[in-house]
């Protein structure tokens, strides 16, 4: 299942990329998950595509390895976060853009003990949610753009929703 999904992501990203960016930063949770998961770095890549005079479509994927504060059944969690959405173009705000979109989080535990097999996290679990993003261009050169990128994601997990923030730098080509 996952395999096919990632294939489709590749398909979409390759078919439609107009500008590509690479990013890195920090990943941190809000609410009760803060007590469970340590802040962690992320690495990401994305692309953007002009949709209209006012709007740009964005797509962004990040990968993180999360270390856990309390749980000992896992060494950590692999986390993939994919997003797609629509943001304002430079014709609305020149140096910054704000956008909203949908998110897909996939998490898989890195088992440390045999007890880990009793968790659903022992296999890949995924869920949709939504995100808001803020992008600020700091440096705009002929070929490169450097700036900061912030995301708020609300993943519609049960029994409670999960909220996380990602903030970092990007280089766009």
């Amino acid at each position, binding site marked *: 299942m996952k395999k*096919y*999904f990632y294939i489709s992501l590749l398909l979409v990203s*390759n078919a439609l990329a107009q500008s590509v960016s690479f990013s890195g930063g920090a990943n941190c949770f809000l609410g009760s998950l803060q007590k469970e*998961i340590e802040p962690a770095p992320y690495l990401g890549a994305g692309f953007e595509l002009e949709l209209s005079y006012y709007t740009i479509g964005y797509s962004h994927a990040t990968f993180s390895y999360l270390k856990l504060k309390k749980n000992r059944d896992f060494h950590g969690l692999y986390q993939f976060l994919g997003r797609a959405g629509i943001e304002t173009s430079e014709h609305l705000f020149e140096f910054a853009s704000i956008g909203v979109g949908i998110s897909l989080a996939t998490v898989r535990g890195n088992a440390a003990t045999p007890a880990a097999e*009793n968790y659903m996290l022992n296999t890949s679990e995924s869920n949709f949610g939504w995100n808001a993003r803020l992008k600020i261009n700091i440096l705009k050169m002929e070929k490169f753009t450097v700036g900061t990128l912030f995301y708020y994601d609300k993943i*519609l997990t049960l029994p409670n929703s999960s909220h996380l923030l990602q903030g970092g730098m990007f280089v766009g080509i």
Partner: protein
Amino acid sequence: MGYGVWGMGYGIFQLILLIGIIGGIGVQTTFAQVRGETSALTPLAGELGTHLIAMPTYTYSRMPGTLGLQAEEESWRPDKWRDRQIFNRFVPMIDWKTNQNNIWFYVGKENGDMLWQELNYRGEVPNKVPMIYGGFAASLTNEFYTFAEFNQIDFFSGSNFGSHSEQINTQRFSWFGENLPAYSGLYGGFGYNGTGDFLKNASVLTGSEYLWAWNEKEWMPIRISPRVEGNASVYFMKSEIELHASTEKFQIKDSVAENHNSFGLRLKGKSIGGGLYVNNVKDKENIVAWTDFNHSFFGFANRGFIAFGDSLRFADSLEYGIDLNKSTSLTPGFLFNQSGIKMYAETAYKSKPLYGKVRAYQNYAADFESIGFDSEIAYKSSLAEAGAAYSKEFFEYYREHDFYGIKPVENSAKFFLKYRFLKDLAFTHEWVYRDLWFWNAQVEQHIPRWNATFYAVWLNALSKDRKDFDFGGVNGARFYCGINVRI
């Protein structure tokens, strides 16, 4: 909407085109078409009452009163017989007229896996399952094309997983995954669209399916593999003749496989047509031969059919259209068939951008007696579309109650609003009532440069842990997104 991953070469893209050929029908994009079910979720109609279908969710076939909101009209349709009575399809196969170069891919999920929350709430929330479907159609030459589709819908599998796994000893009863999905199918084939005087189009499709069907007592695991279906249209003496044939190996798990063979021939005339469908199962034939007709005279419209099968079936409707004024019409009519009579009258108002319709009817049938009405009002402009529809049917007598205790849909309602923010960006949502309320929403972004359309769809039953049928799954919120590209 798409997700970016690291930039890869176009070689991979081509490879993926070859492997990824994964099928389905996609979201309909026409006027307010967000649905309570995904488009692969189709009723097993042709029987009375409301049914949970082989698919994970349900839909109402609403046969008894018909004429209701989005009801299957009882006006006779040969395609319906072909697909459901003769070919006995749980899921419609590819549209045989597929001749556009298209690739489409959808992925969805029941909402609510725990993910990180499991660290805190282990064991509290059952697993939620995905669905995935897509396909492609591509021209090989001007006249020949190839197509394939894949479709697996795991929605609601979690709630039936226990009862399903008791029946089979493996968790792998699907093309992939271990959720024991209600339906999993893979098909591929070739087709021809010609301009010749004799042969108009032809196609052949082969594949296999896993599915679960409810037989009113328990879920039956079924494997249909291989299945081959061929369709062709030819012209003879200026009339179109449709030909269909299929053969399949049909096996209920752990029983002896049966061969099912079907053949159909349909003559499509302008005012009169007819045909023959033969279905062969275990050396028993089921044959339906029919003629259908369609005439207009002195303002009357007369439509109907006569069919001979294991029993005689017929329907005939007579309508008379009256224009009350420039924008308003009134159409009284009646319909009779072998089991009863329906009388109805419809008044329609059409003056752009407003449309309205009210229809009232009364049924006297062997199985039921009812009166009902349907109403619709809609506004449609280039910026927005909005409307409401409401249907209600009062049953005085309904035989199905005695047998299955299934409640007919007595009323249904729908409100929808579609708003176009920008030329290529539209937002649609609707509230649908069918015993419980659904709220569905869809964002649709079209990218003309790429001939692509992205969809994100939220299907939400506005009640928690609600089952429509004892044997069905629990309705929950589902989300799916997808892309359709003309290549």
